[in-house]
């Protein structure tokens, strides 16, 4: 084999390697962007849920004790500058409070119910995106070439969804994400 042939082979290998790395890098980038977008969607959905919960207070016929309980939990969830763990706890608490007061409300708050469903779906999409990004970041090539060095490692958002419904009561509605 002449030097030229060896050189050509080397170049071909190098080109394939670079193409593969850049492809992997673009996948890492895309996955990271998706975690950011799904997070902002989840954040918006959670804020929407807490705001709808706050509006329960103005519901005609609601008793003051129930109103105080809901308002307290919703205000805690809407608190600015919560760290991740505090936010997860506050949102879970709000879920539990909403579950607890649900049967005592004078009417079924349909907007709140759909906001809860939206938050639950958004959370699942976010955690799914985080799982994809993490599995890419754990790859050998990604780690040794530090393809994800510009971004922080994403974390799933763990909270209790409560008894949300995406469907009216039915046999399949018992599905609760862990």
């Amino acid at each position, binding site marked *: 084999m002449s030097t030229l042939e060896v050189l050509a082979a080397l170049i071909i290998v190098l080109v394939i390697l670079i193409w593969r790395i850049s492809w992997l890098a673009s996948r890492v980038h895309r996955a990271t962007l998706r975690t950011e*977008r799904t997070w902002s969607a989840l954040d918006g959905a959670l804020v929407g849920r807490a705001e709808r919960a706050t509006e329960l207070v103005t519901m005609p016929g609601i008793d003051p004790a129930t109103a105080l309980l809901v308002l307290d939990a919703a205000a805690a969830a809407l608190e600015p500058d919560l760290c991740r763990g505090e936010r997860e706890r506050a949102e879970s608490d709000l879920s539990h409070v909403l579950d607890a007061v649900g049967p005592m409300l004078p009417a079924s708050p349909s907007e709140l119910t759909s906001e809860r469903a939206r938050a639950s*779906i*958004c959370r699942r999409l976010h955690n*799914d995106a985080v799982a994809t990004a993490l599995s890419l970041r754990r790859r050998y090539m990604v780690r040794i070439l530090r393809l994800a060095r510009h971004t922080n490692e994403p974390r799933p958002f763990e909270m209790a969804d409560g008894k949300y419904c995406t*469907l009216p009561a*039915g046999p399949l509605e018992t599905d609760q994400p862990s």
Partner: protein
Amino acid sequence: MTDQRRSLRVGLVCPYSFDVAGGVQNHVLGLARYLRQAGHRPYVLAPGELRPSAATLDLEDFVSVGAAVAVPYNGSVARVSFGPLSAARVRRWLRNGKFDLIHIHEPITPSISLLALWAAEQPVVATFHTATPRSRSMQLASGVLRAAIEKIDAGIAVSESARSVVVQHLGRDAVVIPNGIRFDDFARGPHLRPELAEAHPSTNSGRTAGSPMPSQQPRLIFIGRLDEPRKGLDVLLAAIPQIRAARPDLEVIVAGQGSRRLPSCCRSLGTISDETKIALLNTADVFVAPQLARESFGIVLLEAMASGVQIVASDLPSFVDVLGGPHDASRLGEVFTVGDHRALAGAVLHVLDHPSPLRAARAQQAARHYDWSSVGPAVLAVYRATLSAAPARRTGNVVG
């Protein structure tokens, strides 16, 4: 929230040809119908031609990628499209459609679903219909198709068993939303069509609406492809002698694509229309679902429940999810061990001897939850959540 009310342009991709009836095809048509009624613009891409009888869809909203090719896939023969020509058509459809999002059905199918997933630049929602625990394509998918799977923004699984396959093999998650049925069509009572009446001149009289035990011959029905082993017709046929020994007057009707030799007591209606299916379900005493495997959802089972007929089904996970287990006191039908023809015969005889209108009524109520009026809004909620996490559109804004 104006964004929540905006009319959406949705591109639905169906991997299987509309030339033949099938669960996925019916689901896509039903979803398109629901979306249109809800004020959105659904567009459907599929192989083959749309049958006029399935024209719940405006023909101009349907685009064919060309003739479908019948290939063996996933234990049956699938009519799919693939190849560079199909890929080019898929790309053109995606480019020209100006869709807000693409909803791909069975994304890991060697057909246009995979081509669309590969080429899509819009947000992608994908519905997984299959619940095959050891699906070869799913296992392959985890390696070769990893990059394509990463493009899915939101996954939907039609049952818990379908979801666990997605989680295990693809490392992705999915929201569980069952397939939809048109409940009112099936629950509206019998109206025999001529072809059915001709097939059974003796049984026309004496059948009244919703009567679980008509005075005449008891009628047992099976709906599903006759030539596909996994649909389990063999199990039913093996059980027939035992059932007939106890109920010599039993009438057995099978309906579905394919041809095969049947015992003399069985009559085949061949491929049936929706109207005939409704009439058939409404005049039957027992509906048997003897499926052996790979039934992710069993839409016909739900349609049968909606019609109020007594149910006998094998204990596949997806059936048990719907009906309840064999030892569940509040189960909605009789459940027998998969492939056990003696157990099937026993269950059928039990149902014939002790018909329970109450249980049939409960099954009917349960089926109501799968009506498009419940299932459709859940799908839309996933669309909205997906769009709220979608990147800002690169192409010019489109007014629908």
